[in-house]
């Protein structure tokens, strides 16, 4: 049906935390929990032994990676954690017994126990929005226009992000439906510039774009 994912252009990400905040606001994520958090990786020497100012760093938004071979789904005893038809990993809260094995098995620490509902939660890729043709809120609100959402089956070049409408003062619907494609918007990239978080056999699907000249670290 589809195979949804997000790519983040780390050469563009400014670490503004808009994605983190937008996610919390739209999904009602409890205080202390983060369905997406933005880490600063570095500063590291650009070359071995280099000193300041020859250092570099990047910001890394970390959320559920909606893996191809998800460990959380494998260990879930109730099938509460499951792969949806659109390729996203979702939690059926009515089935969850709160054993938290999924949180232990997730390599990225992106699953949280909702203490009020006593079930495990995580990024849904804004299922409530994407099922209506909208963008996930973290993509929609990205302050640096570094995040793009799309269907892997259509190719990453066709992932979409929000764009300026042609006419200032346009209606909300027009504004939210105005999109731009990754390939057309960001600086040129090759397949070698696309990176994934450390893979423990789970095959993460979310991608990070970091072009030559910057070192991806894992």
């Amino acid at each position: 049906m589809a195979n949804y994912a997000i790519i983040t252009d780390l050469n563009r990400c400014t670490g503004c935390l808009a994605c983190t905040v937008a996610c919390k606001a739209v999904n009602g994520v409890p205080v202390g929990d983060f369905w997406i958090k933005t880490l600063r990786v570095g500063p590291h020497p650009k070359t071995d032994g280099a000193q300041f100012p020859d250092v570099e760093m990047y910001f890394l938004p970390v959320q559920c990676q909606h893996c191809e071979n998800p460990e959380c789904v494998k260990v879930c005893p109730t099938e509460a954690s499951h792969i949806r038809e659109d390729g996203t990993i979702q939690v059926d809260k009515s089935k969850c017994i709160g054993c938290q094995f999924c949180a232990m098995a997730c390599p990225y620490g992106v699953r949280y126990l909702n203490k009020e509902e006593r079930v495990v939660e995580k990024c849904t890729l804004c299922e409530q929005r994407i099922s209506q043709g909208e963008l996930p809120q973290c993509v929609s609100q990205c302050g640096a226009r570094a995040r793009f959402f799309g269907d892997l089956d259509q190719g990453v070049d066709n992932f979409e992000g929000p764009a300026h409408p042609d006419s200032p003062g346009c209606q909300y619907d027009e504004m939210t439906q105005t999109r731009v494609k990754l390939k057309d918007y960001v600086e040129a990239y090759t397949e070698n510039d696309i990176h994934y978080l450390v893979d423990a056999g789970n095959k993460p699907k979310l991608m990070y774009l970091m072009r030559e000249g910057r070192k991806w670290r894992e």
Partner: protein
Amino acid sequence: MNPEWPLILFTFFLCVSGGVLGVQGLLCVLGKGKKMQLPSLVVSLAALAVGGIAVFMHLQHWERIFNGFGHITSGITLEFIGCIVFFVVLVLYFLFMRRSEDGMAPKWCGVLAIVAGLGLPALTGDSYLMHALPSWNTPLLIVYYLVNAVFMGGLASLIIAGAVGDDDASGLATKVALAGGVLQLVVVLAYALVINGSAGLYSAEIQYYFDPTLPDVAMVDRAGIVGSIIAGDQAVLFWLGAIAVGVVVPAALAWLALRQKAAGTKLAGYAGVAVACCAVGGIVWRVILYVVAISVFALY
């Protein structure tokens, strides 16, 4: 990871339960331990029940427990099924013991008891193997649960043999306990060394990072955490708790009991102290396993 006490107690009591039933099975196959059959079954069942209650404390929605059959290949579901099969074996053993004319369960019941007694701890260990947690994701975890079951089972059976005066069973139970002790010493030391040398598995290229959601929390010292067992923060707990108190003392007590040909209450006394020490060691090692369980992407 913070220690999950319900799970620690669950795995501990499961090893006790499996060990006691397994040793009773071995005694049955060898035609020994007739007098201690019922007490062994009761102890095994009680340990299974305590472990089961403990694990319920871990579940946030225990009232939905039957959802636990929803994914048949998941570790927890297999554990759940394993507990039920174990219970069935206990009942079968009891029924055939009561039915037999000489009061001794048939040998096939003994074989079943050995298989169930070793199978349940192994299944439990298997459910904790997770690629994300290298400290757990090793067959050594399964082997540890197995040898811990043998050690605890041997020692607990010694108490039972001493308490009911089943002298023909005590020699074998002591040997099982001693073998379990030696094996546990080897396995725990090997396991500690493996974890100690695993620092390279954890996001090694990321030396510096900052998590703005945890601004007052230091970076995770990944090498420090996994290297803490042999000569770090966990060293005292490890060497004193898991090794000296947990293995050396109980094994020495079992050896003393064998040497002195202790019987009756004296044997039960030796074994009682040994079991208490072994319990401390088993729980300490499980706590350490939680402390060193950090994810491959251990940045927060």
